[in-house]
């Protein structure tokens, strides 16, 4: 290492040390020693209401965030103290973890019993003081996060009593984002409060409007009822605008649900599209390949749970290749064992694979029982997030991404790999391909393996949004066929468009017709569509197709 390098490194280390010193210094400024804070807290219990007001003032002056829950508990009237020792405590009723605990350290105070405790008394004027105190501690806190969450809580409660404090917080606020939330809270209070002037109310309407969403709609609707006549039109037009926005978001939400359903259909159908499109084989056991993929996930998770629980978040990463390989191999076995004897007899293939699906279902039922198995979501697949007015769950989100990845990967495989080239050659002219030296039996086996492997991947994905049972695949097989038939055979883009169209159409019909009737309508529409275009949306056209 050169001298210059060493110098830079030293500077870096120095800078990091300085930074860490600063970081630790900040909490030290706001946080009291446990003992000091405990003294201040204990001062809440004795004496008159006046003394308590003083004690509250001292706690506010301490600026220690740990005082906030104590004050909140007191406001709720759930703060207790030990009659003999005079110590202020939390009970299980007041949010402490154990039965009775120290409000500052959170430690269990097991030597005390509930019989020893007495409530710390509050009256109305003290409650007002408490509210202001909590507001000051949080709205005026030095920690930006505390201020933000305090501002949001004021926005939620919209208590006119907070107005004064809110005004001072707004003038003191430097963070634009927090200031906006505070101003929104102020506007909501203005609209709510009967005392606010017409000017204030008028000015508040656009601010509330900017909040958007259902909350703003509710606030404005409530405000409309008690609003003076002169500002009614303003509020009404704001409500109209919001309702329009809401309707637009509802549409977007439906589109999202549709895309989500479509991606599931895509995953289930794409393997089918390959085996049907390339080989002309109707695989009625395709749904069972999906089911086997889901059970692979279940088995992988069980093994991880028993041997390496720490790897749980990685369970899907392990299950994906495992499911692909397992179902792919099962697929190759089916092709070599049964389907290859039935080429050119699509109806027989349909029947044989149906029989196979019964056997596989029954076998899985014998091994895993017919009970529903729950497959866990890794932490990163759980929960949801909001995007504008959309609520999106992570598992659905990742499945949409995953479906598209699988689709793109498959397109690339078909386009750029040797096996893909051979598959396309066989699709277009089996006899010619075989006379050019392509080993069509190998291609058939590989194609079927690939289609089944993708079904296995679909199974991993489906295990994340539903329960796993031996008849999991049956629920998807008819829908998958509809996608392939609708999209047209021999064209992956048709499958994509078909899956998304059916998914979205389903979700748009559902609210009007209900889930079951919606499904019936979709089926009938597809049946009618096939009358118009017997070979689907993206059909190959040519002289010899009907031959």
């Amino acid at each position, binding site marked *: 290492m050169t001298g210059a390098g060493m110098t830079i490194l030293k500077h870096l280390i120095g800078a990091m040390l300085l930074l860490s010193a600063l970081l630790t210094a900040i909490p030290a400024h706001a946080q009291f020693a446990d003992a000091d804070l405990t003294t201040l807290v204990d001062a809440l219990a004795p004496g008159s209401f006046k003394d308590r007001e003083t004690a509250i003032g001292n706690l506010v002056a301490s600026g220690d965030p740990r005082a906030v829950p104590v004050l909140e508990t007191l406001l709720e009237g759930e703060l207790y103290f030990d009659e003999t020792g005079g110590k202020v405590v939390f009970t299980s009723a007041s949010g402490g973890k154990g039965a009775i605990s120290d409000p500052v350290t959170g430690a269990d105070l097991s030597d005390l019993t509930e019989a020893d405790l007495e409530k710390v008394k509050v009256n109305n004027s003290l409650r007002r003081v408490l509210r202001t105190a909590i507001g000051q501690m949080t709205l005026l806190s030095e920690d930006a996060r505390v201020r933000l969450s305090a501002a949001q809580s004021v926005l939620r409660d919209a208590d006119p009593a907070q107005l004064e404090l809110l005004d001072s917080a707004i003038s003191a606020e430097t963070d634009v984002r927090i200031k906006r939330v505070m101003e929104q809270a102020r506007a909501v209070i203005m609209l709510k409060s009967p005392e606010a002037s017409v000017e204030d109310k008028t000015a508040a309407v656009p601010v509330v409007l900017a909040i958007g969403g259902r909350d703003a709609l509710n606030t404005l609707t409530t405000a409309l009822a008690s609003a003076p006549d002169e500002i009614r039109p303003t509020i009404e037009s704001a409500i109209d605008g919001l309702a329009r926005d809401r309707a637009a978001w509802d549409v977007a939400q439906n589109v999202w649900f549709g895309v989500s359903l479509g991606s599931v259909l895509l995953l289930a159908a794409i393997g089918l599209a390959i085996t049907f499109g390339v080989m002309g084989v109707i695989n009625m056991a395709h749904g069972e390949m999906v089911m086997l993929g889901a059970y692979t996930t279940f088995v992988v998770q069980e093994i991880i749970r028993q041997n390496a629980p720490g790897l749980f978040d990685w369970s899907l990463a392990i299950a994906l290749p495992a499911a692909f390989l397992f179902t792919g191999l099962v697929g190759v076995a089916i092709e070599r064992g049964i389907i290859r004897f039935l080429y050119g007899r699509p109806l027989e293939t349909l029947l044989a694979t149906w029989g196979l699906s019964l056997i596989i279902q029954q076998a899985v039922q014998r091994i895993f029982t017919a009970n529903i198995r729950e497959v866990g979501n890794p932490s990163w697949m759980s929960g949801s997030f909001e995007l504008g007015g959309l609520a999106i769950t992570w598992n659905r989100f990742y499945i949409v991404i995953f479906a598209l990845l699988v689709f793109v990967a498959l397109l690339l495989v078909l386009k750029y790999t040797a096996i893909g080239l051979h598959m396309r050659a066989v699709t277009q002219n089996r006899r010619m391909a075989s006379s050019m030296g392509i080993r069509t039996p190998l291609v058939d086996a590989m194609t079927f393996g690939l289609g089944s492997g993708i079904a296995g991947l679909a199974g991993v994905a489906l295990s994340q949004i539903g329960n796993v049972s031996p008849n999991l695949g049956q629920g998807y097989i008819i829908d998958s066929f509809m996608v392939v038939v609708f999209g047209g055979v021999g064209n992956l883009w048709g499958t994509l468009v078909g899956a998304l169209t059916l998914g979205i159409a389903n979700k748009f019909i559902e609210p009007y017709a209900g889930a079951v009737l919606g499904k019936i309508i979709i089926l009938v529409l597809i049946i009618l569509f096939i009358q118009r275009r017997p070979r689907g949306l993206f059909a*190959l*056209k*040519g*002289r010899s197709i*009907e031959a």
Partner: protein
Amino acid sequence: MSEAREKLGTMLYLDGVSVAFDGFKAINNLSIIVHPAEMLAIIGPNGAGKTTMMDIITGKTRPDDGQVLFDGRTDLTKLDEAAIANLGIGRKFQKPTVFESHTVWDNIEMALKKPRGIFATLFYTADDEDIARITEILETVRLLARKDDYAANLSHGQKQWLEIGMLLAQDPKLLLVDEPVAGMTDAETVETAKLLKDIAKTRSVVVVEHDMSFVRELGSRVTCLAEGAVLAEGSLDQVSANPVVIERYLGR
């Protein structure tokens, strides 16, 4: 060429017909005329559009553009296969297509010109006239001895003859015959040529064939197709002397 001629009095009239499959022009501005009781032989390289032309005439493929008239007045592009067949256009396929799980007799009986309606077919019983007619046709195509055999058990050449017999039974005004002598022995080829010439005395016949000696045997007008359009027309000698035909089809 075609505009100079009269539509009326033609058996088959194709004018400016084009069809494309996914951008590929299988037939490109094709114009052909066949007169009553005339034979036309069509030659041309693979992919010249010969079979597609037959598909268009028989209603299997709809042209993107152009006029297809039968008997000078019936627009064939508006009709489906069955309607066209019932107008009196019979077709023999390149690959012999007979009903293999039926007997030779039943094959002819089904083709026999009779009402094609569901109930007419359900309650049909062959009368003496029909039996005589079927027997006569089977004699013509030399399959009477095998009338009770399943068509699947015929030889390739016999299947070709059976299909020609089915054509005769349909009693069409216009016959479209696609490679009738493929897989036949020389003697059979000569017989077939004789049969077709016989048929052409009373009906119009369009024959698509690769076998030049067979075309010579027919001694009819010849049209050479290439890339979906007419390359040359005339007698076989004229056409095969045409330098473009030599270049594109017959080879140097």
